[in-house]
């Protein structure tokens, strides 16, 4: 857990909650940041840090379906920050039509050809979809990350109505 200054949930989990405590969770709620299996068009998923979590739910929902091809671009600081590392490696091999690219902002594993750095327009061109293919784009991460990626996608010609975003506050990679 990473405490966000003034964060309602993270400060409770980091400061007050103890191992063994019960937590009641409501949800899922909200219908906007959702991928439905009947949507057959290509999908671009762009994650900043723990923003990969709702996108992973979409990848798991897609499990075993032939439909929409997915491309995930996942930005992390360091190799050890990768959430779902094992599962994503397995799915990138086994799930047909799922491409996974991890970009590193601070430290990359040995042999990684891409220089470390924040996600760029080159990454979206190399690992995403061309705007002409009209992918639905789901972008989740810290506010700055989400706004940067959404602006780059619009610059690349993606229709803003095809870009869905979820921000979780100011911190992050």
């Amino acid at each position, binding site marked *: 857990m990473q405490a966000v200054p003034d964060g309602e949930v993270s400060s409770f989990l980091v400061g007050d909650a103890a191992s063994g405590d019960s937590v009641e969770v409501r949800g899922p*709620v909200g*219908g*906007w940041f959702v991928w439905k299996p009947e949507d057959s068009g290509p999908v671009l998923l762009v994650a900043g840090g723990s923003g990969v979590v709702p996108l992973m739910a979409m990848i798991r929902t897609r499990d075993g379906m032939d439909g929409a091809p997915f491309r995930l671009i996942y930005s992390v600081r360091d190799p050890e920050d990768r959430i779902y590392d094992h599962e994503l490696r397995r799915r990138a091999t086994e799930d047909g039509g799922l491409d996974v690219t991890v970009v590193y902002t601070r430290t990359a594993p040995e042999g990684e050809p891409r220089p470390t750095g924040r996600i760029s327009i080159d990454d979206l061109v190399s690992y995403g979809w061309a705007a002409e293919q009209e992918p639905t784009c789901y972008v989740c991460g810290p*506010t*700055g990350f989400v*706004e940067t990626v959404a602006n780059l996608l619009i610059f690349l010609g993606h229709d803003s109505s095809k870009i869905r975003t*979820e*921000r979780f506050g100011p911190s992050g990679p």
Partner: protein
Amino acid sequence: MDAQTEAGYDGNALAGPLSEVFAVELTTAVGRCRGCGTSSQLATLRVYSLEPGLVGRCPGCEEVLVRIARTPHAMWLDLSGMSALRIQMSNGSAAETGE
């Protein structure tokens, strides 16, 4: 990036409190801003978390569209920043059939 933007959440954060009082999912509904006329899915509003509640602003002009405040026994809901709210009644989100 200004300080206001850095503090921002988005309208997805409204889903929980709105689901407590409305029977339909409202973050995919389209609200029209009374200030500038921009129509936006509520999920795309810029949301500021300010005790005791949430403030949702128009992505077009930053006008306040939604205010939600909680007291120990009530929820206060101010939608006066919107001149209309379009709620999709069949399957599918308001985005796909938007006006």
